[in-house]
């Protein structure tokens, strides 16, 4: 079984956003970069499937500058066999469709049995690249999997929808995106970290055909005026409820 896992390196969730000198993207100074949290579930699931099958190959695929290699090495330290980095400049401002096209070109040559990715990247919040891959590769897409079962050439997932859950099935090869709860990602062991340094990581230059959208400006959320402390005990409750009705008019 050959599994491709798409991984993105992103700023850690604790990051405080500071706008960079271009006015369009974040200032990366002092930012701690990590593997996108949802991609960790995708990597873990790929490794579990390989282990259950008894053999196979898991490849990590990333797109970005050379600086994204640590996230790929983390995946390798968890157990991924090899990696391919599609090297582009300024991926942060690129159009999701152009990224999906570049990834699809590469995945086509790999002929995987399964493609896994996180359900969303917590930086751009674009929610699109993995699903676009399905259309571009003519593979079914099963997004936001909370559980996955593979049997008889079919993949079946459960996912959350508004107000409930859905069970969804497709033939493999297919694309599955991982939601929190799919598994508990393993921590890389020291041995894995040492081995990861020697695993093959191929870097390929690619150009994005990127003309669909243009980022004009990044801004921070408007600063709110200081709030009001209504009281310091339960006796303030009645006053608060009145304020919510009469002043804020939200109840």
């Amino acid at each position, binding site marked *: 079984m050959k599994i491709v896992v798409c991984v993105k390196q992103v700023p850690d969730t604790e990051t405080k956003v500071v706008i960079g000198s271009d006015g369009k993207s974040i200032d990366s100074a002092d930012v701690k970069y990590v593997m996108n949290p949802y991609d960790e579930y995708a990597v873990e699931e790929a490794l579990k499937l390989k282990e259950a099958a008894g053999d196979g190959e898991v490849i990590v695929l990333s797109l970005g500058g050379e600086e994204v290699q640590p996230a790929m090495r983390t995946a390798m330290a968890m157990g991924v066999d090899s990696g391919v980095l599609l090297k582009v400049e300024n991926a942060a401002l690129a159009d999701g469709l152009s990224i999906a096209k570049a990834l699809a070109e590469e995945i086509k040559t790999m002929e995987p049995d399964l493609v896994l990715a996180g359900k969303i990247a917590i930086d751009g919040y674009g*929610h*699109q690249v993995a699903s676009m891959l399905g259309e571009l590769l003519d593979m079914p897409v099963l997004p936001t999997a909370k559980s996955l079962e593979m049997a008889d050439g079919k993949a079946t997932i459960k996912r959350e929808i508004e107000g409930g859950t859905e*069970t969804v099935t497709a033939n493999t090869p297919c694309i599955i995106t991982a939601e929190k709860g799919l598994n508990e990602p393993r921590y890389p062991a020291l041995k894995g970290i040492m081995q990861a340094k020697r695993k093959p990581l191929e870097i390929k230059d690619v150009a994005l055909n990127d*003309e669909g959208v243009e*980022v004009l400006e990044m801004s921070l959320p408007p600063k709110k005026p200081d709030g009001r402390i209504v009281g310091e005990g339960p006796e303030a409750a009645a006053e608060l409820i009145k304020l919510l009705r009469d002043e804020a008019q939200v109840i």
Partner: protein
Amino acid sequence: MSQILVFAEQRDGQLKSYALEAISEGRRLADKAGAQLSVCLIGSGIADLSTAVAGYGADTVYLADDGGLTPYSPATYAKLLADALTATSATVVLLSSSSMGRELSALLAAKSDASLLSDVVETNWDGDHLVVKRPVYAGKAFLRVAAKRAPVVVTLRPNVFNAAEQSGSGTVEHMAVSVDQSVIVTDTSLISSSRPELTEASIIVSGGRGMGGSENYKIIEELADTLGAAVGASRASVDAGWRSHADQVGQTGKTVSPNLYIACGISGAIQHLAGMNSSKCIVAINSDPEAPIFKVADYGIVADLFDVVPALNDAAKELLA
């Protein structure tokens, strides 16, 4: 004449509130550009929804009504939307940032070689170009982005745009349906809950680490039920196993923008604030006056939530009775 196309999501014959928001925003954009508004409705036994959709300003309703369209089939729905896009030559397609809308928008964009701008909170024209505002880093920052090429696919964040009824009677175009079986929804189980869904709720009562255990959420649920609110949770309480991930608000959970967000026992970690700081009114209840949540709150009570939340419930019951 140029065209705007909106996908109006329904489940079980009920139009979603965010579908009406999308139609209204489509109407507003169409009026500004002197364009026509088409709305695509997909499902089975939903012909009567055409009237409702027209009542929000649709000039034309593209109706795909067929027994094979229940349960929801992503590949089939995406194909129908692509057909509607071809038929209308729309330059802008609007959907909602719901689980269905997110999935369909990406499939449609790739099918139609269109860019996708997701979770948009503001739309405007700049000449012929659509310019949108959308959150990144779960709302820690916003981008203004221009669509340079038509068509462009846009998903709108629920609860941000106003739905406005209009007088109007759209003409109905019936669409030919062929069901694609490549992805099959074999089961849909909706939890019968009297509470609204988190991303659609106009009020959310949320509990964090200060709750101390799953059993203590009872007081949160009681207040939520009095207010007709949804129940949310912080990452700390989800990681502790007190609430399901479906309830999590924050950068690795849901991004919400209700009219009122009541944060109980939530300190206000930056990743939580990212998911809720676009709420119109924020209330913080925390015993620690230094908690960062007070920095974003409009109103605060510095006290033990186990005293305050039941008192709020009593006061709300009295006032709303």
